[in-house]
Each structure stands twice: as structure tokens, then as C-alpha cells.
């Protein structure tokens, strides 16, 4: 039976409506999970509210009152957007329900994060309406192909070609060139030129955020704040306004005290990103009786780095920015990334963490490829290693939990 266009649109809208409801449920369920935790306190409510963005974007847009720049991955320089009057948000998505909108036309083994990201474009209050510009650095293959997947959407895309070799002059200067190009592009969009002192103010703002984040990480390392909450707080940074985020984090750190001090073994969480509402892995780790004392997820601890500039000239500032978003970043898509593993090992040694949980999203190839070498080296260094490959679905919770519990037993 052939449907006419009106009917088709009608059924499409109905489907979208249904999925939207599912998404809302998913978000609310996750949020209420978090609220019911024993270590929830009222200050944390602020961060849970932030995540209502995909559910009610218009509300969020009103809240931030600046034109939005949607970005994927952490290589786009946030300070630059801020200095030119844009509000940068990261469009990463951890929603399972939203995948239903995109899975019909994506490969079955697509990275779930990308599936959700693409799906978000097909919600009725879509990213199209929300963001004025989209910035996509070409990190992994999925991200590189992302603009192609949604080319039917009328939204200006800015693609930053990421040089995958960091520690060479060519790579660094090419990335600087990309930053300059982005600056020009943003200047055009904003209709004004970049002001040096404005950029300095922005850099300072983000440095304050870095400072607060550093304190958060320190709290976490000492086991004063649990891994899930720090991931949630870091996730919120990707959407929230930087200044209010900094304030709120400082407030949380001031008032927060964990209900009871337990002596769970600490683990290091590495691998693919974890983003609200997909907090399965961190919750399961905690359920299995371990503390995530440290992680190196690009949605958590790797999110904020310091921007230190010595030259207040525009060139100096942009160079500092370019290096902060290129050299400081340890995305597995880089070729010369040997420091990442060393740093992980160092952190584990420093904080007496005995094991590493390597979280892997199915289809996340860079991390998957790395995991084997990681496993070898980490075991050679006398640490425990557990690789968990999963996706956004909840059905393998028992399987993962069983493994995590056994893993905990090996840590004691």
C-alpha cells in the first residue's frame, strides 16, 4: 500500500513523537537513578537539569541566550567561540532511544555515539534549529564521515582537518592554520573581528574552569567524590556556560561530603567516551564494589586542559590554543600517542590503582585497536586489565557485572 506524502509525514511525526517520549523517559530514568543515589546532594541537581537539552532544546537555548555552535570531539577551541560571542556545546549523545531514528540508514556496527549523534538530527526540535554552526574535527573515521551522513540537513558545517601526527612541525603548523581558518570563518559568522583582549578574557574563564576541574579531579582521586558524579559534572561542562559551571562546581566541592568512607579498590576507567544518560559502565563498576578513582575519557578528565600563553599577541594566543587542543589531547586517533599509556601507568602508580577497566563501545575502532597493546603493556607492568565491549543497550548488564565482580576479586 502506497502512503501519500501527507500520511507519510503524519506517521513520521508520530514516530518522532513516540521516540521523543522514549528519550524523555530515558533521560528522566537516568536522572532519577542519580537522584536516588545515597551521595546525591542538592547542589548536584543543577547539573542534572543541564542534560535536559536534547529533551527540550528550546528551553536550554533560552537559558544560554547566545548563538550556539555545535561541536563534536574536543579539538575545537572553546575559547575562540566564547570570545566571538558563541556558546559552544558538544553534541555528543548517550541516548539509546534516539538511535532508533538513525539506525535504519547507518551500518549496524556504527559506533553508538555516532548513531545517537546522527539520530539527534532527526528529532523534531533538531540540532538544525538549535545550532547556527557545526564544527567537526576529523578525529576518527566516524566523525570524518559524520557530515556526509547528515548532508541533507541545511546547517553550515565547518570541518577541521586534524593532523594525526602531533609531535612534528608540520602537524603543529597545519593545525595552527586550521585554527586560523576557523577564526576567519567564525569572524565572518559573527560579523566582527576577534578582539585580543576578549580572547584573553575567555581563556581566563576557561582557565578558571580548569582550576575547578583540577580540584574536582583531586577530590575524586582521594575518593571524596565518586567517579559517576565526576563524570556527570564533566559531561555538564560540555553543554553548560563555562562561568556558571565553574561556580557550581566550586559550590559542590565546597559543600560536598561523601556519606561514608569505604575502602573499595580503585580502578582506572579508560577507553571510549561515556556520556549522559549512558552511564552504565561507571554505575556498574561502582555496583561491583569499585571506585573509579581516575579516568581518561574524552568526556571526562581529558575534557579540560590549561591554556597557558606567554605571548598576549593574537598569534601567541591562537598558538597557545592550537597546542592546547592538539598536543594536550590524547585522542587515540593520533599516531604518536605513546604518552597516553605512560600517563595512565603513571597515574595508576601514583594513586595506587591496581586495575584498569577498558571500556569499549562496539564500533569504536581506534580504542579497540589500541586495547590489545594496552593490555599487553599494562599487564607487563603488573596491573590488572579488563576490557569490556558494549553498547548503549542495557541488556548485558548482568554479563558485565559478573565480569566486574570477578575483576574486583582479582584486585584484592
Amino acid at each position, binding site marked *: 500500500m502506497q502512503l501519500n506524502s501527507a500520511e507519510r509525514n503524519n506517521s513520521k511525526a508520530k514516530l518522532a513523537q513516540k521516540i521523543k517520549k522514549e528519550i524523555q523517559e530515558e533521560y528522566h530514568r537516568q536522572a532519577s537513578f542519580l537522584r536516588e543515589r545515597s551521595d546525591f546532594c542538592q547542589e548536584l541537581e543543577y547539573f542534572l537539569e543541564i542534560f535536559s537539552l536534547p529533551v527540550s532544546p528550546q528551553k536550554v537555548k533560552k537559558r544560554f541566550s547566545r548563538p550556539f555552535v555545535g561541536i563534536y570531539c574536543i579539538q575545537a577551541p572553546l575559547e575562540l567561540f566564547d570570545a566571538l560571542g558563541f556558546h559552544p556545546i558538544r553534541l555528543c549523545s548517550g541516548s539509546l532511544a534516539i538511535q532508533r531514528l538513525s539506525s535504519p540508514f547507518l551500518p549496524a556496527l556504527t559506533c553508538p555515539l555516532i548513531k545517537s549523534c546522527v539520530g539527534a538530527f532527526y528529532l523534531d526540535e533538531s540540532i538544525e534549529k538549535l545550532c547556527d554552526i557545526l564544527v567537526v574535527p576529523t578525529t576518527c573515521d566516524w566523525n570524518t564521515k559524520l557530515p556526509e551522513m547528515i548532508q541533507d540537513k541545511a546547517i553550515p558545517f565547518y570541518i577541521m582537518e586534524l593532523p594525526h601526527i602531533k609531535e612534528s612541525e608540520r602537524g603543529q603548523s597545519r593545525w595552527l592554520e586550521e585554527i586560523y581558518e576557523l577564526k576567519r570563518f567564525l569572524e565572518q559568522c559573527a560579523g566582527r573581528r576577534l578582539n585580543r583582549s576578549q580572547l584573553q578574557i575567555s581563556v581566563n574563564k576557561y582557565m578558571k574552569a580548569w582550576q575547578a576541574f583540577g580540584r574536582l579531579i583531586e577530590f575524586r582521586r582521594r575518593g571524596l567524590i565518586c567517579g559517576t558524579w565526576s563524570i556527570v559534572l564533566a559531561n555538564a561542562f560540555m553543554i553548560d556556560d563555562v562561568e556558571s559551571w565553574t561556580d557550581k562546581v566550586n559550590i559542590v566541592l565546597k559543600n560536598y561530603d561523601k556519606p561514608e568512607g569505604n575502602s573499595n579498590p580503585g580502578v582506572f576507567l579508560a577507553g571510549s567516551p561515556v556520556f549522559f544518560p549512558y552511564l552504565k559502565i561507571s554505575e556498574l563498576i561502582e555496583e561491583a564494589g569499585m571506585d573509579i578513582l581516575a579516568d581518561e575519557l574524552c568526556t571526562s578528565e581529558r575534557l579540560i586542559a590549561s591554556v597557558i600563553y606567554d605571548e598576549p599577541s593574537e598569534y601567541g594566543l591562537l598558538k597557545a590554543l592550537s597546542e592546547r587542543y592538539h598536543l594536550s589531547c590524547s585522542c587515540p586517533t593520533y599516531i604518536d600517542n605513546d604518552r597516553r599509556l605512560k600517563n595512565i601507568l603513571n597515574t595508576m602508580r601514583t594513586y595506587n590503582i591496581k586495575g584498569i577497566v577498558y571500556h569499549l563501545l562496539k564500533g569504536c575502532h581506534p580504542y579497540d585497536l589500541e586495547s590489545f597493546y594496552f593490555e599487553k603493556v599494562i599487564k607487563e607492568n603488573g596491573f590488572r*586489565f579488563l576490557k569490556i565491549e*558494549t553498547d548503549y543497550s542495557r541488556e*548485558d548488564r548482568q*554479563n558485565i557485572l*559478573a565480569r566486574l565482580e*570477578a575483576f*574486583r*576479586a582479582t584486585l584484592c
Partner: protein
Amino acid sequence: MITVGIDLGTAAIKVVFIDQGSLLWAKALPTLPQHIKVCEQLLKEGMETVSLKKKDIAGVAATGYGKRLFPGSMKIVDEISANAVGAYVLSKARARTIINIGGQDVKVIKISCEGKVDDFKMNDKCAAGTGRFFEMAGRILDTPVCEFGDLSFQSLSQVCLNSTCAVFAESEIVSLLSMGKSRNDIIAGLHKSVARRISELTGSLYLEEAIYLDGGPAVNKGLTLAIKEELIRDIDVLEQPQFTVAFGAAIILSEEMSVKESIKAERR
């Protein structure tokens, strides 16, 4: 001191009674939606057979996927640790590697000299090469799984099964049958495919001697042989391999309790 280990697996529920590390009684029943009923039934049966009263039992340890579902357990043990301890004790501290083929998963567990879990590998969300896989094949081939071992030895020319996926293997078996391949050859092929799957999970070099196979399908001698051939390693099978996990859980509980008691005794 008598302790009970219950393994609420995905395929079967196993109950083991032990006394000071020695097996008293063991029985398995297939998993039904009413887990607790099955468990209680098995416990009752066990108590009757060994002629015990409820107060004689020092404690019950639960393990397996349904370990949290059984309300009467004193201790919940994760199945990997339980498996390691069980196999270690049953093999008289010889086992260093265990390959466990369960209802839904395949685990390879490395055990340290002290009988603790050193490292383990487990399949992710995929039932290929597990007990389910054999159940499925048994249904299509219209043969009870327990006969697989003997039948595979009668195979003249092994069939090669390409698919490692439980679902796709099903259609492959059907097409092989329609091509006129013998049942025995297909079963032998199945064993080989499972063995390959296990070797892919870890690689032969990962395994340390002595290697033991346990879990329900381990009874299948044809499968054991196929795994031996595939890994080119010597592999032993424990007696009553499906009970190692439950046994291990019971052992863990009894050890824990004896430690507690000795502490109590010292305090006195």
C-alpha cells in the same frame, strides 16, 4: 560444617552440598522462570537425600546470573571466582587455566598458585560457542545434546561450519542437512567451530598448564577432543564439570565461615 552452593545459571540451576571440602550431593535442573521454586525443590531433595535438617546447614552461597534472585543465600559469589576456586579444589590445586563453557558465555580463567583468579577472558554479548549453541543445534538435528560426543566420534569426514554466530549457524546447519551431509559430520563440525571460537577468544599461548574444561558442555568428549586439537594443548575435564561453580561457591562460603569461627574462638 555443611555448606550449600547454588549456581543459578542461564541454562541450569545446580545445587551442591559439601562437607569440609568434600562433595556430599549434587544435582542440576534446567532453569525455569520460577528460579526460587526450583532452588527450593533442589535444596529439599538434597536435604532429604543426605538426611539433613535445615539447622545442620551452615550456610548457602549463591552464584551465577541469578545469584541475587535467591533470597536464602548467606553469600553471593561471582561465578568467575567461584569457578576458579571450585576447579582449583577439585583438580587438587593443579589447575592454572579453566575453560568454562556455560549456557550463555565462554570464560577462560587463569588461576594463580594460591587458587585465586589471576585474569580472565569472557565473550561479549554473543552466544556463539556456548551451551545455547549446542541446544540450538540439538533442536535442529533432532538429537539430544548428551549424545553429541559419541556421535561426533562416528564422523567420517568433518564438515566445516563457517558461521560462528549461533543464529547464522542454524541456517547453515539446515542448508548442510539439505545438501545431504550426515548428522555426525555436522556435529563434528560444530565441535570444531566451537573449539575455534574458544581459541579465538584467548589464543593458545595465553593458556597455562594444567588446563581444565568445565561447564555443562564439557561432558561432551567430542568437544573436548576438538578443543584439544584446536589449541594443541593437553586439556583435562573435571568429574561432573557442570558443578564446579556451585562447588566453588560452597567452598568459598565454608572457608569464610571457618575463618570467622577461628577469629571468634581466638576472641574467646
